[in-house]
């Protein structure tokens, strides 16, 4: 793995303020997230709703400006045009993220025009055909509209559009969550294959732990706007150091009835609201290991074994 990361995020913060008339306080979506993405790798991000994973995704591609902190691509910040071109995004719901009044050809050639990547209509058309072929769609259907395709095919259109600018990084925000379970595997396999053949680096954001483990080399676990644990997938899943990671893994339903009797960690309550995150460690209100220290001292992300965890009582290998 090369030393220089392709994408680097340093201490990102993002707070959404309520409107003028809103009584609710500001939502602290992301509070101090740093990460690095290396060429050709997949970084998975898991977490429950409200943990800030989608906000993080939007900041990584420059759709959202961080309040503080910085995202750099090979050392250069947004919003330089070639940086934007190199970091693309695939959204969760392909039906709402594709303009229903544009044909597939228009949709996929739009980034080519914006970034002046193909000269003239025939060249663009040829390139759109190539891209559709790459994602497993029949180029003959490029004059159709998004609603004429199934959910899985629409997600392929979204991927073709992201690939149009030959990016080095694609950030996928819940790319398979809206798809039927029999179709999810098609899209997961397509992303894995594109990574192998094109060497593109992926950030794969999802709430499904099994899918994330399947696709990722490294995994970050987020809780209430912060990274609780991050490291190689085998380490994070195999020997989780943060109690939240253990609880999350333990709570995930497993499609094998023979494992029903296994010991499970049951967390009490719901994740607290990001409007008023608890002081100290944000997980201490639901944590069975919590001590007085946890409710006052915010733990820093520190190395444990081969990965990093933000916990005063991290599980360390014996």
């Amino acid at each position, binding site marked *: 793995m090369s030393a220089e990361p392709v994408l680097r995020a340093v201490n990102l913060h993002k707070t959404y303020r309520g409107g003028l008339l809103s009584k609710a306080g500001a939502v602290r979506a992301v509070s101090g997230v740093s990460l690095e993405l290396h060429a050709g790798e997949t970084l998975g991000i898991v977490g429950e*709703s409200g943990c800030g994973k989608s906000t993080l995704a939007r900041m990584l591609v420059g759709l959202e400006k961080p309040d503080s902190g910085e995202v750099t691509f090979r050392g250069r910040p947004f919003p330089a045009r070639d940086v934007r071109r190199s970091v693309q995004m695939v959204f969760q719901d392909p039906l709402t993220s594709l303009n229903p009044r544009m044909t597939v050809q228009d949709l996929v050639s739009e980034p080519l025009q914006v970034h002046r990547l193909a000269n003239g209509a025939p060249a663009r058309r040829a390139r759109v055909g190539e891209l559709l072929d790459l994602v497993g769609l029949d180029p003959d259907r490029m004059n159709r509209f998004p609603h004429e395709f199934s959910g899985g095919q629409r997600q392929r259109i979204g991927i073709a559009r992201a690939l149009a600018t030959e990016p080095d990084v694609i950030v996928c925000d819940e790319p398979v969550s809206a798809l039927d379970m029999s179709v*999810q595997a098609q899209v997961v396999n397509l992303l894995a294959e594109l990574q192998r053949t094109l060497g593109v680096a992926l950030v794969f954001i999802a709430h499904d732990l099994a899918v994330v483990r399947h696709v990722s080399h490294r995994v970050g676990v987020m809780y209430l706007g912060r990274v609780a644990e991050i490291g190689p997938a085998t380490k994070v899943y195999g020997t989780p150091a943060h109690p939240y990671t253990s609880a999350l893994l333990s709570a995930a339903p497993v499609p094998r009835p*023979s494992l029903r009797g296994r010991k499970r960690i049951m967390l009490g309550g719901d994740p607290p609201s990001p409007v008023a995150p608890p002081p100290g460690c944000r997980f201490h209100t639901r944590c069975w290991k919590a001590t007085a220290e946890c409710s006052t001292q915010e733990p820093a992300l520190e190395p444990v074994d081969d990965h990093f965890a933000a916990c005063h009582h991290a599980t360390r290998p014996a």
Partner: protein
Amino acid sequence: MSDTVLEVRDLQVTFTASGRLLPAVRGVDLVIERGQTLALLGESGSGKSVTAKAIMGLLDHPGVQVGSRVARLGEHDLLTMSAERRRALRGNDMTMVFQDALSALNPVLSIGDQLGELFRIHVGATRAEARARSIEMLELVGIPAPGKRIDDYPHQFSGGMRQRILIAMAVALEPDLIIADEPTTALDVTVQAQILELIERLRRELGTAVLLITHDLGVAAEVSDRVAVMYAGRIVETGDVYELFERPAHPYTRALLGAIPDLERPASELRAIPGQPPSPSSLPAGCAFAPRCDRVTALCTGTRPELTLLDGGSDRAVACHHTKELLDVG
């Protein structure tokens, strides 16, 4: 008294949309025993939610035809029952837990009013009695400080708490059958585990039968006794949860299990199923899964396989021409 809580035979539901007939459910049989959980597993459009609504009698409007040969809830024959009687049955004898608790609860009534209404209408309780019973119910489903929270409104509760309130409403009158339609799909995984445990505990304590509608193989594997797999409006395989997951006898069930990643056993490549589920407006003539099946033969595209009992299994039935080969291969 018989131990069969629900028996439905040959359930058919057809929608009429702009003059065209859309068969959503095409001959579904369901039997649930007392204290048993049956998971009805299927993808979107497979007809699982429509089945649930038809059983509840919630599809009673123009443009929908519902028919069946047998529909019994315990001693009651649902087919001959008047709409009035059926309404009384809902809430008393069978109840439903919906996916989205926020839209299933009335936003302008307090939780106490909504729960209390059940006791006042169905058992004629006074306001004070209804309030006391409601507090008990909230306690039963694990709402902290129920005496204080009873006057709160739905928006003041979290998603998991709202789902608990819906469950409290569903079990309040100790029904024989609870139909839970994707009860945990909108919830986070740590909260999902709590809710599934709650449903499981109540089933044990109250002996209620549960029909669990889900698209999640993991959820079905965790809590059900029996599983029925639906595809394109029909049950393609049904049986004991252990047997079905360990030795799937229908290519669709087998393909689904191969297509989802397993947390415990990460594989290098998922076995994707080609194509997508058929639309109810253009169903294939033979087996509905034939166009996506890796074992398809001429027989499959021409003749639809009937749901047939398997030898040796405990009430296992499969609708596939090639089950024998499938099971022999292992």
